[in-house]
């Protein structure tokens, strides 16, 4: 495997191998060896054509712990925001000798275009493309779920996950649906019908409009960020009504079954899709998701970059 563009690039075995590697790397990070020489001499570029401090920092920490040289190429002040073409950017990265490019871009498919067009020879890692996918987020979510709920199993068979909110515009939801179902979990999307894509019926998930009906049966509640701009596009009447039906409130939190966990990819809109009670409750693993993100991204970088170019990595 050379690139990580979509969860579809991974078989179940591949995905489990990433989670297992992340687990071992997490142990290394906890132990005395904070920094590993593994990717010494490798150049990794964080190409962020869209703001995302947390994902960028997470990849940066992962790369640095593996001793790679990291170059940040962010949208603000860079040529990407000035309309420089993807092609010119890629050729620049190639000229700089990037071994891997971590791409965040507002256009769906941007990472795949970079990988397909052979403008550069390095690995491409999709760190979120438009409303398409965000595979490393799904992997860290699966890692977190497995750690808490899999009881030693290497996959997520039998676990019930509710993904709640703006599925239509969510790359996190798309990657998670693909990955969690691949790992054996049962996924229900909970959303107002306006925020589900036409065509969702072909996805391997259940659909529910009534959040309350699921609270007692799910093991994981994954809340998605809702953007207030969606109101002006008529997706829902207002924030109050959205929270009333699709927000994770204190009352809903109390109805969750024992052991159920609450997740959110961040950044949260406290008081909109999730109340402070829920975000800060003992069930919340939101902060831990961030920690796990570094280990999972170390595993991705290790598996994509440590081996020789062109060979099957996993």
């Amino acid at each position, binding site marked *: 495997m050379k690139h990580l563009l979509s969860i579809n690039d991974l078989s179940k075995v591949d995905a489990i191998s990433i989670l297992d590697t992340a687990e071992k790397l997490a142990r290394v990070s906890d132990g005395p060896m904070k920094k590993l020489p593994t990717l010494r001499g490798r150049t990794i570029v964080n190409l962020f054509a869209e703001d995302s401090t947390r994902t960028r920092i997470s990849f940066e920490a992962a790369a640095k712990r593996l001793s790679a040289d990291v170059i940040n190429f962010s949208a603000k002040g860079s040529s990407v925001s000035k309309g420089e*073409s*993807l*092609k010119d950017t890629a050729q620049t990265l190639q000229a700089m000798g990037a071994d891997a490019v971590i791409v965040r*871009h507002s*256009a*769906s*498919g*941007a990472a*795949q*275009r970079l990988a*397909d*067009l052979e403008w550069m020879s390095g690995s491409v890692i999709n760190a979120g*493309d*438009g*409303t*398409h*996918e965000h595979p490393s987020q799904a992997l860290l979510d699966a890692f977190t779920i497995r750690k808490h709920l899999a009881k030693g199993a290497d996959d997520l068979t039998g676990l019930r996950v509710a993904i709640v909110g703006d599925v239509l515009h969510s*790359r996190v939801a*798309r990657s998670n649906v693909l990955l969690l179902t691949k790992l054996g979990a049962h996924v229900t999307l909970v959303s107002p019908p306006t925020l589900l*894509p*036409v*065509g*969702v*019926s*072909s*996805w391997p998930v259940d659909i529910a409009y009534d959040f309350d009906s699921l609270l007692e049966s799910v093991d994981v509640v994954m809340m998605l960020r809702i953007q207030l701009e969606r109101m002006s596009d008529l997706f829902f009447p207002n924030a109050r009504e959205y929270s009333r039906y699709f927000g994770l409130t204190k009352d809903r939190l109390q109805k969750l079954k024992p052991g159920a966990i609450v997740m959110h990819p961040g950044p949260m809109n406290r008081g909109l899709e999730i109340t402070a009670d829920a975000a800060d409750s003992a069930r919340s693993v939101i902060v831990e998701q961030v920690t796990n993100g570094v280990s999972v991204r170390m595993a991705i970088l290790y598996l994509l970059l440590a081996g020789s170019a062109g060979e099957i990595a996993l």
Partner: protein
Amino acid sequence: MTKYLIKQGSLADGKVTDILIDGERIIEISQNISNSEAQVIEAKNCIVLPGLVDLHTHLREPGREDSETILSGSMAAAKGGYVAVSAMANTSPVADTAGVVEQVYRLGQEAGLVDVFPIGAVTQGLAGVALSEMGAMADSKAHVRVFSDDGQCVFDPLVMRRALEYVKQFNGVIAQHAQDPRLTVGSQMNEGEVSSRLGLKGWPAVAEEAIIARDVLLAEHVQSRLHICHLTTAGGVEIVRWAKARGINVTAEVTPHHLLLTDESATSYDPVFKVNPPLRTQNDVLALRQALADGTIDIVATDHAPHPVEAKECEWQEAAFGMLGLETALSIVNKTMVESGLMNWAAVAERMSVAPARIAGYADHGQEIAVGSFANLTVLNPTLKSRVDRDRVASRSRNTPFHGIELPGVVIATFFKGKATYSFDAKTSEISAGGN
């Protein structure tokens, strides 16, 4: 002018014959013509069709001569077997005055490879608000009869009603780009299972069908003539079928790409497959083929839309809509309609020459292949196969979605009013012998 003798070609009805061209016209059709002065075209195993007529072509001149000119577009047309094209109005400046349409017409005549018939804009600047001077364009040397805001939908129902009424005075036709703009804000591809997966904003079929439904009812109400550009959905086919059964004066076109490609192509995120209206589902493709075969859809029109490299070598959502069509249209129709057994060559002649000429009122075109007719002829070897190569197109642009695909059928020669505007040179083209 040179005399030409087409030897042993099959006419659309299957009859094998020789055709002698002198000057602008066909002067003899019979078995075993011999004429020592004539240049001979060996047409054994070839089909001789009335020269193809395109009702939907973007030639980009004036304004975007970097992507196509009237001359380069004419060359692409001749290579594809066309003898007449209809230049869409969305140029810069917009073809919404007699001055612009006359210029386009004149440049077409100067190029001299096909008739270039300008299409006039329905509204000033394609803005959808005020009618353009359609009368002046109709009266101009360009003799415009087809009006379209293509690229934009004439969305305001009152504007559409008035336009339909207005063109009745000179027997014009409004060619509607059926797309509800409110339902397609920011749309990138067909809305459905594939768009849900790819995270690309959907362009729902209903946005096309709702406008078609409205406009056939308006055409009926004001007793005028409506043409539907690039029909793409099974639902749209049903509405047109219903309207025709009801006696409404509506015609419809389908593009070659919508007869072959589906929205699955978008999974590559390669914008060469980005087109408006978008590629639809396999179900739609099959419905379009059936409708073209049964006459619900009257014609094939290319929607030839050249774009410079940078407009396609980018992210999908940044890329321009549109694909090349002129040079591959006949091969695609051969592949999708003739080889599949849905249509015979007589129907191809009707859908790609006779009917478009009739709809647009191009009297010199779509004529029966007969002594005395203009020698507008397309000679096709339907079994030769050739691989589409975007680096060897006649168009100035290279945005063909068929690059690398082997298509059946090679145009051997095109005659435009007795002049050989294209002749196939086997030595310089990559061809593989087809069939067994």
